């Protein structure tokens, strides 16, 4: 029962989000939510601006961002390769599938001490955990995507006597693209989680460390300002991926 025309839905959605944020703002300002628990959204923005103005956030933000991007890169590449390999080995796949599903139930970042022993107290354990979290998401999506390659295309490839590499590049990759993009989005999300959690626990450097300090000092404004920064970055990263996805599709619609 869609009683309103399509074009109203977008603006209504925006209005709903604004209304919810506004409600939270009112609850905070009137003291229903006390400032020790959460500060008003407007105060969060003010805190964020203040943090950015001092410019001290630069090195930490760069640290976190480079870790995250590195973790994403490793997740995507490794996840894709592993997914492609497992896809070609059906017996292995059948055994692994329940394990992959259960993978996310274990907090992988408890292995930080192990990784610190291996890599030292620097950014490598952080990247490793971020990648470890993202790899499985990418693997599962790759498997799903490769599953959906229509068989008729593969048969056509055989008829044209295409080399396996050519088949992978020109047929499998485009056919699996939607799921691959989903995998990339998962990799983005999980890489950020892993990197931030690591920085929070290990307090080496980066935004996670700043969050830990602010939280321990009960410095709510700074903490919420930083959270807002992280949130914004996540939204931006996801939007970039979404955009690339749309552009790839648009190019295909035309062919």
């Amino acid at each position, binding site marked *: 029962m869609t009683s309103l025309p399509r074009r109203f839905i977008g603006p209504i959605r925006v209005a709903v989000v604004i209304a919810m944020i506004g409600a939270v703002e009112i609850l905070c300002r009137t003291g229903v939510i006390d400032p020790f628990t959460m500060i008003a959204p407007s105060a969060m923005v003010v805190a964020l601006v203040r943090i950015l103005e001092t410019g001290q956030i630069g090195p930490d933000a760069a640290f976190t961002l480079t870790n995250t991007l590195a973790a994403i890169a490793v997740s995507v590449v490794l996840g894709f390769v592993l997914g492609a390999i497992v896809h070609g080995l059906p017996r292995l796949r059948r055994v692994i599938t329940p394990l992959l599903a259960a993978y996310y139930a274990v907090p992988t970042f408890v292995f930080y001490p192990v990784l610190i022993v291996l890599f030292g107290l620097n950014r490598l354990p952080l990247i490793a955990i971020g990648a470890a979290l993202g790899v499985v998401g990418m693997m599962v999506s790759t498997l799903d995507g490769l599953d959906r390659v229509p068989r008729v295309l593969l048969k056509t490839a055989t008829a044209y006597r295409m080399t396996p590499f050519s088949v992978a590049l020109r047929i499998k990759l485009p056919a699996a693209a939607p799921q691959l993009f989903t995998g990339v989005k998962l990799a983005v999300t999980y890489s950020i989680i892993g990197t931030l959690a690591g920085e929070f626990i290990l307090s080496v450097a980066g935004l996670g460390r700043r969050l830990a300090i602010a939280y321990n000092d009960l410095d709510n404004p700074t903490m919420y300002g930083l959270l807002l920064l992280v949130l914004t970055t996540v*939204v931006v990263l996801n939007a970039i991926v979404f955009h690339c996805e749309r552009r790839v599709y648009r190019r295909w619609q035309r062919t």
Partner: protein
Amino acid sequence: MTTVPPFRLPGPRWDALWFAIAVLLVWQGLAAWVGTEGLSSPEVTAARLGNMMAAPDFWMHAAATARAMLWSILYTIVGGLLIGLSLGLWRMAGEIAEPILNSLYAIPKITLYPVILLFFGLGIPAKVAFGVAHGIFPVVLLTISGVRATRPVIVRTARAMRLSPVQTILHVLVPAALPEIFTGLRIGIVLAMFGTLIGELFASERGLGFLLMQGVDRGDVPTIMALAVLLFAVAVATGLVLLAIDRKLRHAG
């Protein structure tokens, strides 16, 4: 000319066993290479696990974890289904809400941890809140999708038979949308368990997550690995049970 047939591992039914053996061998090799401070070998881990489970303390923690997880799962299922069914049925609300929910799902909930801790304090409520925050989104999103994918003729038939709304939901809609709803439940339950465990890492003095964090703080690798293996085993078992139910549901239709 006869060719030697390629080596094939006997029988697909034994695959899990071969895989387990391979994992143990790799684990043993890695532990030997890395050294005892990095990884503990399978025997050491198993011994530690045995010691831990023999201590009565351990079961108190295990019970605390189980309790928190069960509550999380309960709230996730009930809350997720209620919200998902409502948004699936009320098309307009569903269309408005879905992108918002998708974005919230994509946001690393870790950014909400300080907020949840400040709101709920330390203890079981926070743990359950973490679990629900993680698990509820897939349930809601997949329920909406499942309800929406139900063929309209089914709903119209229900109306033709003059079924009440509750009867329609219970006897017509839910069974029709069940495969997708159950997929959502599967993902949601595992994520709820994950969220609860994370909550225990940061927000509690009890539970297996707390023991895990103790191990991390002390750098006690055998304990970390023993608990990780235990938790993983429980997760895999849960996953297998859910998969079995899922398969039965799909065949029944």
